[in-house]
């Protein structure tokens, strides 16, 4: 029983962490139909800058805020120079953001060197709670809380405001939306910055989670985020959240009960979902085929 609870808690918190990463991508991928491979690059930048700011200032909140800001600045540059010329063309988006990814990951090394960097936590998040046999790491609780809050905020933004609608329409016919008096360019930039900020936040929060960050993690997490977004169904925030939880929890349980298969778990999940329900768990009907 303790094992079960431990696995569950850890799985859920890993899941929500993955959700933070995937949420930015869902927004960009789902709403604007932009395949942003550089998302992983923003994520690493968030992780490194968060760790660095925390080390310099010793303020965790500042670290988070700073990394989000840096993520957004980079996101702006990406949107302005790489993505804007290729809106609406999936193949080119994929290819061009791949270039962005290369540059972002490699440039990490210019600033922080090629070695992995250790990341610390503020004292108030250190340690764990223990109730006979059940160990719950404090920071994971924190991540769970942040993840849930962010989910709520995004959900409100998308369902309670017209932004979601405008963006979806903008993707379908950019000119026509402009003709309705809506500033599509500004809107797209906004969403992209939001996504970039989320990616950076995900990075900043992941860094203390695993304790080390390294430049190569970008690609790895870009792929993970894509997997989650597709399993959940493109553009569906709920889908991404669900998929993140599944990936997190299944990962925890598989690693415990079937460690031999855990290496292949995410890919098996993805393959199964795509073959059985190509639109993803909560994806729109007919969007995948």
């Amino acid at each position, binding site marked *: 029983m303790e094992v079960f609870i431990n696995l569950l808690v850890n799985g859920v918190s890993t899941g929500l962490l993955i959700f933070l990463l995937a949420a930015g991508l869902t927004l960009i991928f789902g709403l604007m139909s932009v395949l942003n491979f550089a998302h992983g690059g923003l994520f690493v930048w968030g992780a490194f800058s968060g760790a660095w700011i925390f080390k310099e200032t010793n303020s965790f909140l500042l670290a988070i805020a700073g990394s989000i800001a840096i993520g957004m600045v980079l996101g702006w540059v990406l949107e302005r120079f790489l993505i804007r010329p290729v809106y609406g063309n999936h193949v080119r988006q994929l290819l061009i953001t791949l270039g962005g990814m290369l540059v972002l990951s490699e440039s990490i090394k210019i600033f922080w060197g090629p070695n992995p960097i250790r990341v610390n936590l503020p004292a108030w998040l250190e340690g764990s709670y223990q109730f006979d046999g059940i160990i719950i790491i404090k920071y994971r609780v924190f991540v769970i809380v942040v993840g849930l809050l962010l989910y709520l905020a995004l959900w409100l933004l998308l369902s309670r405001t*017209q932004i979601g*609608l*405008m963006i*979806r*329409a903008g993707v*379908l*016919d950019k*000119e*026509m*939306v*402009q*003709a*309705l*008096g*809506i*500033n*599509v360019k500004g809107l797209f930039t906004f969403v992209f910055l939001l996504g970039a900020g989320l990616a950076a936040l995900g990075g900043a929060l992941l860094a203390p989670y695993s304790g080390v960050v390294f430049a190569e993690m970008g690609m790895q997490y870009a792929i993970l985020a894509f997997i989650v977004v597709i399993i959940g169904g493109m553009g569906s925030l709920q889908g991404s959240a669900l998929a993140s939880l599944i990936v997190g929890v299944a990962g925890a349980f598989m690693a415990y009960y079937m460690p031999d298969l855990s290496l292949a778990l995410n890919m098996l999940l993805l393959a199964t979902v795509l073959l059985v329900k190509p639109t993803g768990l909560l994806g*729109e009907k007919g969007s995948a085929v």
Partner: protein
Amino acid sequence: MSLLKLDNLETYLGQYHILQGVSMSVEVGSITVLFGRNGAGKTTTLRSIMGFNPSTTGSVHYHNQKISGMPTHLISRKGIGYVPENQGIFSALTIEETLNLARAKSTGDAEEKMEWMLELFPDLKKFWRKKSGLLSGGQKQMLAIARAYINGDGLLLIDEPSKGLSPIMVEKLMESILKMKEKTTILLVEQNFLMASEIGNYFYIMDDGKIVHDGWMQDLKDDRETCQKYLGIA
């Protein structure tokens, strides 16, 4: 009083010189019809007004205010509604969502306009929650017109609305446009001479990127020669 004034517009698409000095004006409360062969530049004229294909020289004035050079969304917010040639349907959005979107930056009383449009085109109400992409050709056209009307209030630019509509729909559309005329000004691109001549007040004929003829609609109907020469109507 002229509401919209085009002054010597020159527009290039790629290397092609499409509009070669287009000047025209649209009077408040009128229906002005733009005729011309395929490829004459009618659509391009409307797109230049909307700022999609900005002209290189010349100017567009709306309410005596220069709007050429402004970004499209600001032009739209001046109160200009646009129905594009290809209808510009948001295929994955429902009618409800589309019209809500039209309301977002609408000028004037959006509620009232919305109600009136639903009254005018009951089909829209009937398929309220349906994806626009699944509508029939005619239904899409109605949606596009309703969307433009709800969005703007001063001027409607409509590009070939009768395309693909059944005779009775064309007739209904004519009636609707005539009704709309009481509340707004309309610049219409149309191939259906029968329809356009019925409802238009003034007309321009374009050929090869230039205005080659203009005048009052009543006069055109009697002007066999012009009809023959530019519109291919015996």
